[in-house]
């Protein structure tokens, strides 16, 4: 066994490479069939306003990219996304730690959280329009609100469910409270918090698109609605695709963060 770890490793690498290729092939096969069905359906309907062909959509995509409109709206949305997400994390995670560690703080804040949480971010849009007006502030605030609760709830739960035996082990090794927090509770709670971050990103992104659609002068949600009013459906679809892509990429990014920060966790599943 010890004589050939090299061969094993390269063999495993090749196997992984092959399965990756197979995955991509399956993916492409599915998407090609999907595009063909779409093309067929739109040719059969024959009304490009109702359902344009994928080729039309691709053309508008290229056109929008060329004119810079695509980049501008994407950047507008991206900026709001990052800003509100970072703000939500900066408030929700410390608060979640305080609530998870201290019973009194929890008792004081949790009922208010439970009162507000069922009111979705989207329900705040009309009131937000009054207070903040149409602009950058509204979508940012709505996404902050949407991302806040998943982050907070997951932080509280993760902090509370830290295995007592780790804390006990650290204490018997003679370390202080601050070290227990930094070296034990924070890393033990991290996987749960990161799950919360991904949920938060999903929920926040959804409410932000809604906010942009209703009350923003720029951004992907705004662009979708703008081109619908002009009945330019290919461009509507191009932006819809972009919204999906952005959501997907942000989730991928968070997953990568998750993997790199919790590499110590036992790999689960296949």
């Amino acid at each position, binding site marked *: 066994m010890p004589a050939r770890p090299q061969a094993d490793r390269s063999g495993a690498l090749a196997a992984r490479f092959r399965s990756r290729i197979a995955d991509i092939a399956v993916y492409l096969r599915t998407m090609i069939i999907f595009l063909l069905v779409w093309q067929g359906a739109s040719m059969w309907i024959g009304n490009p306003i109702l359902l344009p062909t994928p080729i039309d959509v691709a053309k508008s995509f290229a056109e929008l990219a060329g004119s810079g409109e695509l980049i501008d709206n994407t950047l507008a949305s991206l900026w709001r996304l990052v800003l509100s997400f970072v703000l939500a994390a900066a408030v929700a995670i410390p608060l979640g730690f305080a609530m998870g560690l201290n019973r009194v703080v929890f008792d004081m804040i949790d009922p208010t959280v439970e009162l507000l949480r069922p009111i979705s971010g989207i329900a705040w849009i009309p009131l937000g329009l009054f207070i903040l007006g149409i602009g950058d502030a509204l979508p940012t605030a709505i996404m902050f609100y949407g991302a806040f609760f998943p982050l907070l709830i997951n932080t509280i739960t993760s902090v509370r469910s830290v295995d007592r035996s*780790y804390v006990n*082990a650290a204490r*018997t*090794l*003679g370390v*202080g409270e601050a070290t227990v927090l930094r070296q034990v509770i924070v890393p033990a709670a991290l996987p749960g918090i990161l799950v919360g971050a991904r949920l938060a990103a999903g929920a926040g992104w959804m409410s932000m698109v809604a906010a942009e659609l209703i009350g923003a002068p720029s951004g992907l949600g705004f662009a979708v609605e703008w081109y619908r009013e002009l009945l330019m459906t290919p461009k509507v679809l191009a932006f819809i695709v972009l919204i999906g892509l952005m959501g997907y990429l942000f989730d991928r990014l968070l997953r990568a963060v998750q993997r790199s920060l919790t*590499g*110590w966790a036992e790999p689960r599943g296949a």
Partner: protein
Amino acid sequence: METLTPAPQPKLSLRDVGKEFVLPRTGERTVALESVDLDVAPGEFLCIVGPSGCGKTTILNMIAGLTQPTSGAITIDGKAIDGPGAERGVVFQDYALFPWKTVRENIEFGPRYRIGSTMTRQERGERVRQLIDLVALNGAENKYPYELSGGMRQRCAFARALANEPDVLLMDEPFAALDAQTRVILQEELLRIWGEEDAEAGRRTVVFITHGIDEAVFLADRIVVMSSHPGRITEIKSVELPRPRKPEIRASAAFQELVEEIWQLIRHEAYAATIRA
């Protein structure tokens, strides 16, 4: 009992220790331990055996400072115990290795973070290297706990507890989760590391909790036999087997007799507990 207390100043001393739990919901009281009196001499290897629910782990946790007795007093070197301390190392039943730290980082945890540690980085590195040699984890230094076998995890937890150079080592069924062969090997390893072959003065005080009677007989200088409902000490047995103990000793008549004697002390309760559960 006086005859069994070998040294004038015991390392650990439990005086009339009791522990009651109150269920938060119903307010119902359960007596986990009742008037436990026990002295542990410096350098002694003490095993505690007894059926499930007899409060073995509670005693250990109280010595470790993780829980307080509801009555009585526990002292170490004559000083009352309040809270955990680096001079009492603990090996937990499920090891409680930090999964986010590598073997090296786990072992280094005490020397690096404990309050008042004055070790330099170099000294720490040196100490960790010695411990890894001692428990034969060479090559696994940078692995995470999930990558280790059960026996390796156990050895890592042991090394982590030793890293603080504690006077007292508290072990809570440390070999319970291992297969029979690994257990036998690690028992011998434990005696070697404890210093069985050296002078008695150099040995640490060990309190070792176990289910296995033969394990207790093989390891211990004295065995505390407990019974449950409420948990209390039934009897304390001295093990007069010569040290260093070789595996062959298990086959000796003296060994078997002692095992049988202790088994007779607890078998009624063990049966009752098993069948009721």
